[in-house]
């Protein structure tokens, strides 16, 4: 059984209201079915407005789809009872693009990471502190950062804290919604490396939503392509993606910038 399965999900924004009777709703997800196996990373590529983030929200349980099911470990997350939903939330975590808006500016790094632990684990104060320090060290920060506030970190460091928070409960699936897109290249490479290590270490699965083909290539096992709310195709391997003749994929490959001036196409 796959860890996550989505069956024929359709979702649209903006519906009819009493005053606005004409149907102006826009289908952002159109009949999407996919599955993610345990310990794998599915890269989800698409241009802006393709419905990538909505897909992420639907999977996280933040946006109930109008049609279709989202099954996490066999439970429909929108139909499950309170007890199961609570368990699912523990196993399903997220890291978003904007690291600053994902944290409370009034909390220190320690309290940010402590939040999920306080909610789910019954640890003594000393144990909790030790866990937090271990997590910080795991993501490349140190004990000295415990009492710092978000504005004292750089974007890359804060994204590490977000990752530490996401892995603190040893979840099964992490939705990475453009998690590295706002970072500079050095930090991007470091965070991608960290995510890869954590995946091996904890047997994590990722849904890696991105518009950056290179980043998707680094982290993903399978690659899916979204275009205008429709799933174009899912490729079981990266090679399949790069040899695909589909026009959407072709256009995406064309937009990759050269890696070496030898391959430049603009000049």
């Amino acid at each position: 059984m796959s860890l996550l399965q989505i069956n024929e999900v359709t979702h649209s924004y903006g519906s009819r209201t009493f005053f606005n009777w004409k149907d102006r709703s826009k289908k952002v997800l159109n009949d999407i079915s996919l599955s993610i196996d345990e310990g794998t990373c599915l890269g989800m590529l698409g241009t802006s407005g393709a419905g990538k983030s909505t897909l992420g929200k639907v999977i996280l349980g933040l946006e109930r789809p109008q049609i279709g099911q989202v099954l996490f470990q066999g439970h429909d997350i929108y139909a499950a009872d309170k007890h199961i939903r609570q368990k699912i939330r523990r196993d399903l975590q997220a890291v978003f693009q904007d690291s600053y808006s994902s944290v409370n500016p009034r909390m220190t790094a320690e309290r940010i990471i402590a939040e999920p632990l306080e909610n789910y684990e019954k640890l003594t104060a000393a144990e909790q502190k030790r866990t937090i320090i271990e997590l910080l060290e795991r993501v490349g920060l140190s004990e000295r950062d415990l009492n710092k506030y978000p504005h004292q970190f750089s974007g890359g460091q804060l994204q590490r804290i977000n990752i530490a928070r996401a892995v603190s409960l040893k979840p099964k699936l992490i939705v990475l919604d453009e998690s590295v897109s706002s970072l500079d290249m050095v930090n991007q490479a470091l965070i991608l490396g960290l995510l890869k290590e954590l995946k091996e270490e904890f047997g994590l699965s990722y849904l890696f939503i991105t518009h950056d083909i290179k980043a998707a290539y680094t982290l993903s096992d399978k690659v899916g392509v979204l275009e205008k709310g429709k799933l174009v195709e899912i490729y079981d391997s990266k090679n399949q993606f790069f040899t695909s003749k589909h026009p959407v994929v072709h256009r995406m490959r064309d937009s990759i910038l050269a890696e070496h001036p030898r391959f430049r196409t603009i000049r």
Partner: protein
Amino acid sequence: MLGTEQSNVLQVNNLQVQVKTKNGASTLVEDINFELKRGEVLGLVGESGCGKTVTSMSILQLLNRKSTSIEGSILLQGRELNGLGEKGMREIRGKDIAFIMQNPMNAFTPVFTIGHQFIETIRSHTKWNKKQATELAIEAMHHVNLPDPVKLLKCYPFQFSGGMLQRVMIAMAACLHPAVIIADEPTTALDVNNQKNVLYHLEKIRAEYGTAILLISHDLGVIAEMADHVAVMKKGRIIEKAGVFQLFDEPRHEYTKKLLNARSKLQFYESAVHLA
């Protein structure tokens, strides 16, 4: 003026920028030397916070004059910019040096139409009337492949997508044929499909008007596509300067090697290109 200097459109010598703080002066960038020839693209790379933007802002004298001090010389076509008054700079900005900012969404005033802002820019530097300025604006927008410019000029910035707005900005920067365009991370805020498009238009302007471009980016892909020469910055200093091929093939400085290794590699893609 010496013959060698004449070919340099922009020459920056020993640029140093300091900011005054409570605990004395703190140096943001120092010992910056580079020159730009006509039709040349100089790439300025480095990670965030290394002083790329401070360098470009100091060339345009856009930094707060009270709290920062700029030392060294910035020669634009033989004319010293450092120390020039606000009035003199206003004549130069937009006409001789154009600036393309990272986030096009924030670079326009939301309360005026694109046309209003476009025509204001043209008219403040020329003696043209409104009709002539409008014609030039339409022509410039045609040039960057924007569909139906007449209609677009009546639109407000929020009605555009990021990629379109960045093209408007390029059109605006290029319409007065400046000697230098400073492009500060021109593609970072755009999605991948628009990036190449914007770079393509920048290149077109360089090729047609011989504009020199100072291209600031942390993305080595952008540099590989566009630059003739590259300067690598770290902690406020230029640590390596080389031709783009030399830099990619034989990086000398350890930090440059680190930057080059940080690229996510698509070996498979490259070999596919070779086969094709």
